[in-house]
């Protein structure tokens, strides 16, 4: 209920430069941002006024020696206890928002596996019924049967997601660290080699959103863009079915990662796991 109160309060206040959030998670974050911004404005403004008051009021006006005060016990207790209370309050709201933003409920409406690589993105969707790729992220998935969107640097691959439902993203990297960031969703997450991390988007409305890599990943880090296209659930289903049919009828149409992108890792050993077995080419 605290979250609701925060939500209601949030509806009337400005966004203070931030995006309102095109997902439920992003909106929750935006409300927390509003709270922190106002708290920062109040506390920071109070301290600023104290500083300015001291600076302008106590300019040297005479040779008189000021009283050599060094302690004021009551004051000291006050300015220790009050900040602790403020911090605890901010922490409570943080945890409430965080649990919402970080939640990955079971049975999402769509699951997308995202691989970041130097310098592009691969978005994988499951194949159609009866295909060998029910879950692109699983070790047993036949990669030939998965629906894939791959794009490098300025090609800006587009990730299609349905609105109004949980979309789970399973994210990792094929080489170095990358950052998966959609500004209008108020969200970013590292794509790391070595483990897969999962999070959900619940898009509130249709639209096109820009995404970009935020974590320095080498020479063309600046150009590692992607797009997110949020469409209605029926349009998403239509799109996915068409893609799945295409994969079935024209297996060669499945896009391939550019040569040189290792599915292993950045090791300096001569690697024999260049992904042939994983990508089936």
């Amino acid at each position: 209920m605290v979250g609701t109160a925060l939500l209601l309060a949030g509806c009337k206040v400005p966004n203070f430069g931030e995006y309102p959030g095109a997902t439920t998670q992003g909106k929750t974050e935006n409300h927390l941002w509003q709270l922190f911004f106002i708290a920062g404005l109040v506390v920071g403004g109070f301290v600023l006024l104290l500083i300015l008051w001291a600076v302008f009021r106590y300019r040297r006006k005479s040779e008189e020696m000021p009283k050599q005060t060094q302690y004021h016990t009551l004051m000291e207790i006050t300015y220790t206890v009050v900040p602790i209370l403020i911090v605890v309050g901010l922490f409570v709201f943080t945890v409430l928002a965080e649990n919402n933003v970080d939640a990955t409920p079971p049975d999402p409406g769509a699951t997308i596996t995202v691989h970041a690589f130097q310098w592009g993105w691969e978005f994988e969707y499951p194949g159609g019924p009866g295909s060998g790729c029910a879950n692109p992220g699983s070790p047993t998935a036949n990669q030939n049967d998965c629906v894939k969107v791959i794009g490098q640097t300025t090609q800006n691959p587009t990730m299609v997601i349905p609105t109004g439902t949980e979309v789970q993203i399973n994210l990792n990297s094929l080489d170095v660290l990358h950052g998966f960031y959609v500004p209008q969703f108020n969200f970013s997450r590292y794509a790391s080699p070595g483990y897969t991390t999962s999070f959900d988007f619940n898009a509130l409305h249709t639209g096109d959103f820009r995404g970009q890599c935020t974590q320095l990943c080498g020479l063309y880090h600046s150009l590692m863009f992607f797009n997110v296209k949020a469409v209605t659930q029926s349009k998403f289903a239509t799109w996915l079915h068409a893609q799945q049919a295409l994969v079935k009828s024209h297996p060669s149409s499945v896009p391939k990662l550019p040569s040189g992108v290792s599915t292993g890792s950045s090791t300096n050993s001569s690697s024999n796991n260049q992904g042939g077995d994983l990508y089936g080419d």
Partner: protein
Amino acid sequence: MTDVTDVTDVLAPPAPGTGLDELPDLHRSPDAAGHGPQDGHAGHGHDEHGPTGILKWLTSTDHKVIGMSYMITSIVMFYFAGIMALFIRLQLSSPHSSLLTFGQYNELFTMHGSLMLYLFAGPFAFGGLANYVVPLQIGAPDMAFPRLNALSYWLYLTGSITMMMGFGVAGGAASFGWVAYAPLSSATSSPGIGGDVWIMALVLTGFSAIFTGVNLVATIFYLRAPGMTMFRMPIFTWNMLVTGILILIAFPVLTSGLIMLFCDRHFGTHIFTVGGCHLVTGAVTQTCGSPLLWQNLFWFFGHPEVYILALPFFGIVTEVLPVFSRKPVFGYKGMVFATMAIAALSTGVWAHHMFTTGAVLLPFFSFLSLLIAVPTGIKFFNWIGTMWHGQLIFTTPMLFSIGFLLAFLMGGVTGIMLASPPIDFATHDTYFVVAHFHQVLVGTAVFAGFAGFYYWYPKMFGRLLNDTLGKWHFWLLFVGFWVTFMPQYVVGLKGMPRRVASYPSNLGWQSYNVVSTIGAFIIAFSFGIMLWNLWAAWRKPVPAGDNPWDAHTLEWFTTSPPPHHNYTHLPPIRSERPTWDYNHPDSVAVPHGLAAEAAHRARQKEPVA
């Protein structure tokens, strides 16, 4: 006040004709005050028989000489890094600038960060100012281990030269960011010896920092003058003690991490790379290394490092504000415990740099990070309380200290926002974070750092810097600071990531970047004025006298510059302000507690006009 029975006076009885009779007179004529080290009377100078000129400098183990060497080297590094920042800002002033290639841009911001953080901010504080000031403040003749101190400096200088040589090697300097995240810093992703040179430079300066940490802690624990109890130490010394301990906690982790990284790059270990793993499956075999381990090790160093870079500068401000308010530090003991609390908490917050890994316990690191705001807030109220009801004198060091308060307030408030994981998710690795940590670090290392520089310069050289030029420096820096970094918050919230050499032109980011670039050049201009000021002081010396600020602490009791072993005699040390007590026996601090305060007031008759 010449209480000869006091134990502190046993150290050195006053020599006839000099010393006690003369020292308390604060308004000595310039020509009397401008003398060199202990003219005549001491005669115990080792200098007279030792080497002179450059050989003297090369072989010196005097903490003052080493401190000044540290300071000059680190300020040179600061100017280099600042010039790199100007190139970075020029590149970003248009969306697709061809001023620099992507590769050059990556080298420049890597080296800008590395120079500023490893070679300027830290060494300037704990190698430069602390080395010079701490022994003086506690009445010690030198650091505890003078030769180790010299080794620290030479390691630091060697490391700095090694770092700069990165630009000269094939493949260019390191270009993986000052944090060197694995596996981008591996031999596969960053071949070329630029990365190795960077690692070696940091191993050298890392050992230099560790030795300095040892030296500071030992000096402060063992070489305090009689009467200088722990709770009479100036706050700057307190902060350097805590900084020294933090160095001993943090730097060995960095140095060992760097050695591991070197092994990964050259000896085929897979400590930070996921060797032989099939990542697409998401399954991680036991032979895998962990890129996440580098982040953990790096930030276990890196966050205490943030406070290693902050505490000394808090200390400087805590010296400057009372002197120019003509009052003691408000809440001295609370300040000391706040410093300790910051240090303790700083070892438990490192993973707030890793919120977006999806692999850390968010509430724990979030709560501890938020909690750091409490002791930092206490310090703010102490600083304000120090100025409250004071008689504020706006000299250059005072202006820089107030500039620090305002800059650090803004950086601190946005820091609290970033301590909240959902807000960090939205802003991580964007220009919002860039603006935040620049406001924090420019607030501390630059505003407070140069407050200390202007404040102690007369002690170091026996000369005054020009106050008008100093004020020009301050005001231009102050304006340039806000013009540079405020637009970065806005453009960060719009989604501009850090460490990009180009950006789309259709997003409206350019105007913010242009403003930011203009601000950067205003800052650069302000530091040109500082050079002019130094030049002027060198060409036309204005003698400073021993205590030009009517300051409080012990270092202002000796000559400017101090003699070889700092003191021939000491005043009685009965409070945190021995020099003040000596000069103003009627204006001692009001004691702690209500009863004591009432008794004090009763004891005091009419205040002396």
